[in-house]
Structure formats: structure tokens, C-alpha cells
């Protein structure tokens, strides 16, 4: 039924996937194979967990998406960006298209919450008059309006991660990548962060979250892509360890 509707309404306009990897391999200079023949398509608006043991290739995959590294072979697309073939000077635009947070928040300790978020706009040349409104908007999104003038050291771990999320969202990215965002947080706070990511997903942003948090993955029943030794070993809805 849906297929018919799609065909009837827009015969050729298959929506562009948010993330598309074709036969991607990455071999480091020391000979270690970090990724092998990875095919992965994430449709726009999806929420996908990326799981697997340490060293399975999750971080390498994320670095390839951000074009921190180039694949040895294969094609990578993020939205309309041909990541594996783009010119270096277009990389900043790709990175504004992708919001990213990490386990270690990467906040600047001397700056307040507001300044940390505004920094992302200032260093990308946003006109000053637009900065304040944009910052207010994302601080409200992550629920940190009241803490805007505090510094990271005065915040709880969860608040620090929410600051990082606000900073990642300030460019209104189409894709949001979270690398172990709850790795440093206790379970209750972790759930707060997950709920925030689900909310961001609801607003239309595609979310890719790498995690070890089996409880969260199992509870949410979202699509789970499992990597092991650089290969996709499972790609199904729900379950952390899968059925193997």
C-alpha cells in the first residue's frame, strides 16, 4: 500500500538516505583492518544504534562519516555530500551538516554554557546578531536555559552532555552522531540523554548512536547495527547481543 502511494505520488523521487555506505573498507597504515566491506543505509529520520565490542570499528565508522579519515575503498554519502570524494575545503560544510557528541563532552572549561554553544556559531562565521537567538533556542531544546551562565565545572555530567548536545544542534544538523554519549553517566542520567536524543529524532534529525549500553538498546526496539571485527554482523530491529 505504501509502495503504491510512493510510486503514485513521486515515481522517481526516492528520498535520499541520510547516510549511505557502499562496500566501505578501511585499512590503517599499520595494516590493521578497521572496517571490511561495510554496506549501510540509514534513511532520513531514522534512529539507529551502532553496537559492538571495543575495536569493532564503531569509532572508525564515525570518523569516516565526519571525514576525519578517508576510506581505503568504497563510497560514503551523508545527505548530499559525497564524503569519500569531496574536496578538503568542503569538509567544514559537511561537519555543520552533522552534529556530533562524544563520551568526553569536549567542552571548553573557561567558557560558560552559553559561550560554549555560541562558540560553534562564532567559529563558523555566523553573524553576531543571529547567535544569541540561535543559542537561546537550543538551550531551551536541551533544557539548560537556567544554567546558561554556568561553567562546565559547575554542571553535573548530564548537564555537561546536554551542553554538548546543544552545541551540536546549533547548526540545525540533518544528521546527529553520538559516540558513547552515556559512557560517563549513571543510568538515570543516561535515560535523560536518550530521551533528549529521541526528541531530537522526533523533530526530524537522523540519529546514529554508538553505544555499549545494552539496557537502553534492548528497551527501545530501534534498528540495531552490530559490528564485529570491522564487519556488519547483524542489522535488525531490537536486541543488543542479537540472536547469534
Amino acid at each position: 500500500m505504501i509502495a503504491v502511494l510512493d510510486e503514485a505520488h513521486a515515481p522517481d523521487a526516492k528520498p535520499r538516505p541520510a547516510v549511505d555506505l557502499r562496500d566501505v573498507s578501511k585499512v590503517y597504515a599499520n595494516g590493521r583492518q578497521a572496517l571490511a566491506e561495510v554496506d549501510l543505509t540509514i534513511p532520513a529520520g531514522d534512529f539507529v544504534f551502532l553496537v559492538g565490542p571495543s575495536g569493532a570499528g564503531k569509532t572508525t565508522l564515525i570518523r569516516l562519516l565526519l571525514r576525519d579519515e578517508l576510506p581505503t575503498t568504497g563510497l560514503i554519502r551523508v545527505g548530499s555530500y559525497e564524503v569519500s570524494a569531496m574536496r578538503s575545503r568542503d569538509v567544514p560544510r559537511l561537519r555543520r551538516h552533522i552534529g556530533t557528541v562524544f563520551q568526553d563532552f569536549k567542552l571548553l572549561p573557561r567558557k560558560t554554557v552559553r559561550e560554549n554553544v555560541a562558540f560553534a556559531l562564532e567559529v563558523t562565521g555566523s553573524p553576531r546578531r543571529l547567535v544569541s537567538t540561535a543559542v537561546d533556542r537550543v538551550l531551551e531544546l536541551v533544557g539548560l536555559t537556567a544554567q546558561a551562565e554556568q561553567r562546565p565545572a559547575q554542571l553535573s555530567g548530564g548537564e555537561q552532555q546536554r551542553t554538548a548536545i546543544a552545541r551540536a544542534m546549533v547548526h540545525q544538523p540533518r544528521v546527529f552522531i553520538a559516540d558513547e554519549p552515556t559512557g560517563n553517566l549513571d543510568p538515570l542520567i543516561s535515560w535523560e540523554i536518550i530521551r533528549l536524543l529521541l526528541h531530537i529524532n522526533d523533530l526530524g534529525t537522523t540519529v546514529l548512536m554508538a553505544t555499549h549500553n545494552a539496557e537502553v538498546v534492548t528497551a527501545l526496539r530501534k534498528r540495531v547495527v552490530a559490528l564485529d571485527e570491522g564487519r556488519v554482523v547483524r542489522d535488525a530491529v531490537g536486541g543488543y547481543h542479537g540472536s547469534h
Partner: protein
Amino acid sequence: MIGFLAFAARRAAEGLWRNRVMSLAATITMVLMLVLLASLMIILSGMQAGLALIESRVEMRAELFDGVAQERVEELTRQLTALPEVAQVSYVSKDEALRRFREQLAAGGREDLTEVVGANPLPAQLVVRLRDPKSFGSVRQTLASPAGVVSRIIDQQSSVDRLVSITSWLRVVGLIVIALVGLTVLLIVVNSIRMAVMSRSDEIEIMRLVGASDAFVRWPLIFEGVIIGALGALVTLGLLSLAAGPISQLAGIIAVDLPVASGGRLATDLILVISGVGVMLGGLGAWISVRAYLGSPQAR
């Protein structure tokens, strides 16, 4: 564009303040180098002016035998005046020569011993001024040709030659010293900016992560180098303006009009050269450092 420049300048100032000990060290060595450069310029310019002064006064003096007949002297004067190289020939009598010698002694504050000598010991002279100090042409032969008229020919060519060689020697040595100090300054700026890069490595990581273009990462650091150079130039010019009075006085003593005071040509040259060299050296050092420690713009 203005927003970008303001951003880069603000970040550069922040960086300099955060790294202030190193920035200060870099600025001080920059001042040292620029003061050396300015001194060399002033000294060379003074010597050049002195040289020009001496050259403009180059004349040949021919001392005459006592008791030479007046018509023989007049004949020689006519021959000399006819030469194309000669601008003017003037006769200085024995009495006139003595009078001038006494004046010179008085101006120098020395005791006049000529009174002790009974007779006037000074010879009469012919003073030949040349059109071009470097071309003597046949003046020397003409002076020497009539027998028993000219006893001795005195010219200043040897002292001019000596001054020229001192000036060119000083220029070479000065430039070598300045090049060495300049290299030191460059290394210190490179190091200072390297510290800046390291002290803000987490900021730079975040900037790249959120999609800052290379210009936003690099230019604030290059500005830091430029500011170090500009500050160094400013301090140097301040010191020079304080020293301008004494320098001019010193130059006045050796009878050279040195236009070092404000408004003079040398002052304008100094301002341009000192600020230009400072800013360029600072910017170059920062650029080298940024390339070395952040990779080439295409690296990431």
C-alpha cells in the same frame, strides 16, 4: 569579512594574553632586533651624508713655491679654468692662508703658535674646485707642468676612498648581524605560536568538529605573530623618538645634517622599514608555525 577580522583579532589578543610570558619574550627580542636594524640604518645614513658632504667639497689644493712670479700664476690659473672638469680656480695668498689657519685654530680652541714664528711659513695656494669630485681629468698634469710653480698637490681622494670602504664594510657586517638576530626572532616567534597552538589544541579540535573553516583556525594564530611584530615595532619607534634629539645633536657635532627628527626623510624611512620588518617577521614566524603544527590547509 569585518566580522571575521574582528573575530580573528579578538582571539589573537586572547591568545597573546593567555601566553603572556612567551609573547613578552618574543616581543622583547623583536624590539632588540629592530633597534639594531634602526641603528644600522641611522649610522649608514649618517656616513652616507658625511660622504656626500665631503665629496661635495672635494677640491684640489696646489701649494705654490714662495716668490713665484704673479704672471706665471695667472697663466696657470687661465690654463686650469679652461679645463672642462674645473668649476672654479681661486688664489689664496700667503697672508690669506695664514689668516684662515689662525681662524681654524681659534675655532678648535687651540693655542696660536704662529705668532712665535717670525715669518709666515704658509705657502700661497691655488684652490681648484671640480665639477665632478670623481673626475680629475688632466688637472693634476696641468698643475704639475710648469716647472717651479707648484710645490705640492694635495687632494682628498684618499680620505673619501677610506670612508667609502668603511661604509660598505659596515653595511655588510651590519646586515649579517641583523640577519642572525632576525633568524633568532623568527625562531622565537615560531616557538611562541607553537605554544599558542598547543595551549588551545582542544579549542582547535572543537572548531574542526563543529565545521570551522581553516581560515578561522589559522588566521587568529597568524594575527598573534603579526601583533607581536607590530608591538615590537611600536616600542622600537617609541625608543627611537626618545633618542631622536640626542642622535641629531651627535650628528650635528660631526657636521652632518641627519634628518632623524620627525618629518625628515630618514624618519619616514625608519617608520616604514621598522614596522614593515616587524609585522612581516611576526607574520612569517606564525605562518611557519601554523603550517608545521596544524598541517597544510589540505591536510584535514
